């Protein structure tokens, strides 16, 4: 496959993480190449969130090595990690917006606090407004997270994750707890971000339809919506699915292989297409 020859943006090499002797990730190895999308599925407690946190250096592996943009982050000091993290955006499970800050301060936070992002003060507000416009949220700069609905909070958190335009984006259960319409809007934003900025994207989800959208749809800048990638024009970026079970990576491959799998655990997540 052509994509295998590309530069790996994120590489896990036999990574294990455990909490109080309970393994959360066990001997996980994979590599995500530039521009690739990865949909990570698994039951609650299977290690999906831990995998993203380990990729971000928030969780240190007990053994194995994590490479981000070619650099081993497993043994890095916290301050060294800040530079690597400035190239990564993360959407946390419950948005993790700062309660005490309004939306403007939340979205501008990475621009003002990430040392390697040199954003002139006069450009901060325009970039915040641009990021909020990207997620289709206008006129909420002064509002606090508690004043927003769940879907709006999720969109504001995406704006915070993409405001620095990082080349690698990690989304932890972006549609959890949302109604189907809002969930679709959120995944559409993720696809839009991926296609417009050509970012490498990792999405943790338990909803198969989210993965299906990411794998088979692309953003159409002309009408501002999603369209099936098969409809001529550019194909959707390569999307691989990963399934975790009790910390182990039990499946890694394209959607067709996932759908053909006879494994009863994997089948629970797959809604086969007609």
């Amino acid at each position, binding site marked *: 496959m052509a994509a295998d020859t590309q530069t790996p943006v994120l590489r896990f090499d036999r990574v294990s993480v455990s909490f109080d002797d309970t393994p959360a990730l066990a001997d996980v190895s994979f590599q995500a190449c530039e521009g690739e999308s990865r949909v990570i599925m698994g039951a609650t407690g299977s290690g999906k969130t831990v995998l993203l*946190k380990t990729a*971000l250096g*928030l969780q240190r592996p007990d053994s194995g090595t994590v490479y981000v943009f070619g650099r081993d982050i497993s043994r890095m000091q*916290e*301050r060294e990690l*800040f530079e690597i*993290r*400035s190239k*990564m955006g*993360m959407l*946390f*499970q*419950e948005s*993790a*917006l*700062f*309660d005490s800050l309004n939306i403007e301060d939340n979205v501008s*936070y*990475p621009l003002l*606090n*990430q*040392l*390697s*992002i040199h954003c002139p003060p006069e450009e901060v507000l325009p970039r915040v407004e641009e990021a909020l416009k990207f997620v289709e949220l206008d006129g909420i700069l002064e509002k606090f997270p508690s004043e927003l609905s769940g879907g709006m909070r999720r969109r504001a958190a995406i704006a*915070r994750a993409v405001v620095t335009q990082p080349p690698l984006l990690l989304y932890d259960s972006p549609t959890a707890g949302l109604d189907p319409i809002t969930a679709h809007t959120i995944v559409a934003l993720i696809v839009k971000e991926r296609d417009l900025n050509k970012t490498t994207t990792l999405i943790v989800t338990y909803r198969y339809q989210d993965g299906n959208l990411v794998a088979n749809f692309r953003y159409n800048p002309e009408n501002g919506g999603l369209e099936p990638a098969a409809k001529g024009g550019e194909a959707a970026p390569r999307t691989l699915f990963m399934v975790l079970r009790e910390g182990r990576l039990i499946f890694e491959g394209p959607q067709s292989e996932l759908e053909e799998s006879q494994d009863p655990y994997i089948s629970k997540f797959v809604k086969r297409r007609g």
Partner: protein
Amino acid sequence: MLDYIKEPFVAIQEFYLLTGRALRNVAARPHYSDDVIAQMDLIGVGSLPIVILTGLFAGAVMALQMSRALAQYGQQDQTGTLVSISLVRELGPVLTALMMAGRNSSGIASELGSMKVTEQIDAMRALGTDPIQKLVTPRMLATAFMLPLLTILADFIGMFGGWFVSRFFLDLPSQQYWSTVWRALEWNDITQGLLKPFVFAFIISLVGCYYGLRASGGTQGVGRATTQSMVAASVLILIIDFFLGKIFVGQGGS
């Protein structure tokens, strides 16, 4: 069994590491001076009513109780001396610190605990900020600056409370009360009275931060962290107060 023995040692080790990092960050960049000022307002100015009330009634009750003991020796006119010494050396620093532990140590633990369980601490790290530098160091500095000031205030208000009782309940002349209050104090008392709140400030802020940052298990975990921080800070204040008192008394202060 081994876990029960290991747990307190691990906790002490983690607390020392947090303290070390918080102290090291005082000199490190970036400095979050806005956060320090906001915390001074929250911790210091916000604690004024509780400190004033505590100081006032502590002084008043000391005068009331001590006069009873002094009356047995016909020394009731020395009430000011006892109020002054006990307030400046013990009651002012300890009661103010205990009130602050109840209000601020638990407040810090619940605030940081909520941030921890809602992944805001992780988000902070992901967005290029060291939570120790952004959250712990400003709270530590603000408490270390404000607690001695609040203690001085509590001491004065306590003396005023003592005066009120002496004047209106014990019929002592005001001039005599105030003159015994001033004459009783020595440098040893003042030093002790100011050093104690400075040390207690580190306990209050760092214990609150420690329990907050290790909170886990949702809202129940935050509640647990809040209670634990208040209990631990209060007990530590009383233990360290004894040792500090021992050092000063051992130095021959009257």
